[in-house]
């Protein structure tokens, strides 16, 4: 019986040079512009949230590797990326303990109990967010109004620590500094019988361009669809991801949205609203494209992406939560093995064979 040699020196003897650390780092770089803008927009508290989730992810990863007596996998940057992605789905003022619970959950339950990187079924960051949202709904839906880090009303470093670590806002009243996200506003107000126009324009001063630029409330990473999109396109150009999932996911959401909007624009918001609000762009470029938890075949990616988008729109329109990206992607994650199995590519010479 053939034995696997431990020291494998098999062809090919040359390698393209891609590596997991490189892949993960590239994704992190692609997220940087949007992350930086978020920190500018929301101030130091947002940065603290990012650091907290990232660190707790990395520590958890390290501990697990120690327990399992393996070499540390921190150097593959996947834990760091999970932490960053998780932070981007959280509100800018998330209390420290929620951040830590989220980070530990993402790595421990989202990844390591499956056997570590490559074996997990769900996107670790998203499954952690879903867990937090269900467990701590209040903390996860408190949306501070953006306060420019350089502006006069910004939170100082000391205040920021107070906000994150003790929930202490000093003299500020919560009502004054928090507001609804556009999606939340739309669901709440239309739920009360208002038209979309009244809900958004009348009460919130909604402006597409402003939202796309990141100047509205929301989770840390949901703020700037434009910068996230640019980062995503850069990843496509770097051949890290292909266009299939982002494009199909966005279409999966805005095509039905557009059709319903055309049918009745007083009840259904326009497709651009869906595109620039919430986490659609973040989800399409950075969450659904998570390699481990998305299909490997192009056909499968198109199906997966489209269904992610469609589910997102359905949840946004009729579901129990105003935002549906995390749920949609997590639900679709479970279908990935099936999708891969049914979208096997046609191999070289296979067509002719059946003809014969």
């Amino acid at each position, binding site marked *: 019986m053939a034995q*696997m040699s431990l020291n494998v020196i098999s062809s*090919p*003897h040359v*390698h393209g040079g891609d590596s997991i650390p490189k892949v993960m780092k590239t994704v992190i770089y692609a997220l940087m512009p949007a992350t930086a803008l978020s920190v500018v927009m929301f101030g130091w508290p947002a940065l603290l949230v990012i650091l907290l989730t990232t660190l707790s992810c990395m520590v958890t990863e390290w501990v697990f590797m120690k327990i399992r007596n393996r070499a540390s996998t921190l150097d593959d940057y996947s834990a760091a990326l999970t932490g960053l992605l998780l932070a981007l789905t959280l509100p800018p003022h998330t209390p420290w303990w929620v951040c830590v619970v989220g980070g530990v959950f993402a790595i421990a339950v989202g990844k390591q109990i499956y056997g570590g990187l490559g074996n997990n079924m769900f996107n670790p960051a998203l499954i952690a967010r879903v867990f937090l949202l269900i467990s701590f709904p209040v903390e996860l839906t408190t949306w501070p109004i953006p306060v420019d880090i350089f502006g006069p009303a910004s939170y100082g470093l000391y205040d920021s620590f107070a906000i994150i670590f003790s929930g202490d806002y000093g003299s500020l009243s919560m009502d004054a500094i928090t507001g609804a996200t556009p999606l939340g506003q739309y669901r709440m107000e239309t739920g009360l019988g208002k038209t979309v126009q009244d809900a958004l324009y009348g009460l919130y001063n909604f402006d597409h361009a402003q939202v796309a630029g990141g100047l509205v409330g929301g989770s840390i990473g949901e703020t700037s669809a434009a910068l996230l999109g640019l980062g995503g396109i850069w990843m496509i150009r770097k051949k890290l991801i292909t266009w299939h999932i982002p494009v199909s996911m966005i279409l999966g959401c805005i095509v039905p949205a557009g059709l319903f909007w055309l049918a009745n624009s007083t009840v259904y918001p326009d497709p651009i609203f869906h595109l620039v609000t919430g986490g659609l762009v973040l989800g399409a470029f950075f969450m659904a494209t998570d390699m481990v938890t998305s299909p*490997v075949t192009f056909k499968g990616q198109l199906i997966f992406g489209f269904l992610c988008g469609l589910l997102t729109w359905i949840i946004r329109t009729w579901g129990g939560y105003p935002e549906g990206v995390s749920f949609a992607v997590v639900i679709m994650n479970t279908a990935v093995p099936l999708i891969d199995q049914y979208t096997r590519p046609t*191999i070289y*010479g296979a067509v002719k064979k059946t003809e014969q």
Partner: protein
Amino acid sequence: MGIASKIRRLFHGGVHPPEYKDLSENCGIEAMPMPERLFVPLHQHIGAPCDPCVSVGDKVLKGQVIGKPAGFVSSPVHAPTSGTIVDIKEHTVGHPSGLTMLCAIIDTDGADTWLDTLKGIDDPMNAEPSSLRDQIRNAGIVGLGGATFPTFIKLSPPKGKVAELLLINGVECEPYLTCDARLMEEQTERVIDGIHLTLHALQTKKCIIGIENNKPRAIEAMQKAVADEPNITVQALPVMYPQGGEKQLIEAVTKKQVPSGGLPVDVGVIVHNVATIAAISDAIRDGKPLINRLVTVSGLGINRPANVDALFGTPVQSLIDHCGGLKQETKRVVMGGPMMGVTLHYMEAPVTKGTSGLLAMTAKEAHEEQERPCIRCGSCLQACPVSLMPTEMAWFSRTEQFDMAKDYNLYDCIECGSCAYVCPSNIPLVHYFRFAKLSIGAAEREARQAEISKKRTKIKDARVVKEQEARAAKKAAMKAKMAAKRKASASATKKPAATDSTAAGDDKAAKAARAAKAAQAAKAARAKKAAASGDAGGDDDKAAKAARAAKAAKAARAAKAAKAARAAKAAKAATEQSE
């Protein structure tokens, strides 16, 4: 040409590793001094190994057959120079498994004397195509692109298949290698002559020579040579590995795909490597057998890269010495190209018909990275020229779910290494595929063995049953004899019970057989007794009884035969199922 060079990819997938052709592309073909000792493997091709037809101590002449082909898919091996056979024994060769192989070891005499009976074919263009094929077969020519499949077989398309196009493979898509390019540049005539002869042998008119764009001088030389031959064209191809793979080249040039599990001739194409074609010219014009080939010696670890004309059996060490030796930084020596070549552990391994290159690779070129888990990035799917799912195949291979691996078309994999080249997790995918194929091969051999021993056991079981039956019959016969004796003494005319029961239960073969035997025995006993007593009065009665008994015995035999046939059928069905 214009269009072809504009399209980047003419087949699915593929990769474009650093070419490193510049190391040796300007080095003219050179001969090397005669090594003192050659280690000529007797198995340098795909197919059955040769039987040695010389003995230790024999003097051999250059071109003399030293290994006779054993079987149809096989190819003779000739002495690369004159000298003495000093040994015929297992010797290290460049093989992925690190195995040794039976080699004829020749001490060269330096005279390089040709065998004088070698003859070419006069006026080959008017000769019978089959005589050309025979000549090529006897010259031991195999595919020199690396596959080493006996060439004459590819020149004899199966009945009903027509070769409409001869496709010449001048692609040389492996990085580093430049010997085919140099051959086309320097020995254009030889190649063109080989093309004409091969077209004649195949009775085909049309020929396309495929060359990648990174060999402009070879393209130019070939184009010039065929300028006034409209049936032969040169097609420049964009650089993309593994375009030199037979099926990939066919797709790139003709847009047709060879059916999975089929042959190129199924789409009317025959592919030959340029070096093979040149060897065909030598064999047909001069009767020269295949005893040498061009080898690119290159890599950042070699002091003087070169394109060397080397005799088969030349130890790698001699080749390295001829090229100025290895640099200190050399980390790995590879026989073949960097994508599909074999790591060499011993520098005594010889050059063979499949050796297209010898690469001394430094850490800068040879990759050695930690393997990490598959992140299902899908890069391997995009790179695979066969559109396989390497990640799934590797998973099933590693977890030894070989049936699933096969289901994911493991056997369509050409082991080109494109998938492993792009894998960010540095998974040695090809290694896993080879492991799976080896294991499946071993398991199949085991299954065949088991089948044989199962058959043996079955035969043995049958024998045991027969013996038991025989014993039982004997016993019954004894009993019957006793009974018959008693009955006969009581009443000679009373019908024995055994005969009736036989007629009733004739589907119970064993029982019937026993009964029949008993009946026969009884009859015999009676006859004996009758004879002994000299009683002739009961003759009629006895004759009728004997007839009945014989009938019953016949029925029993028939039933037994039917049962045996059923059992055999069931056994056959079972084996078929298990196969």
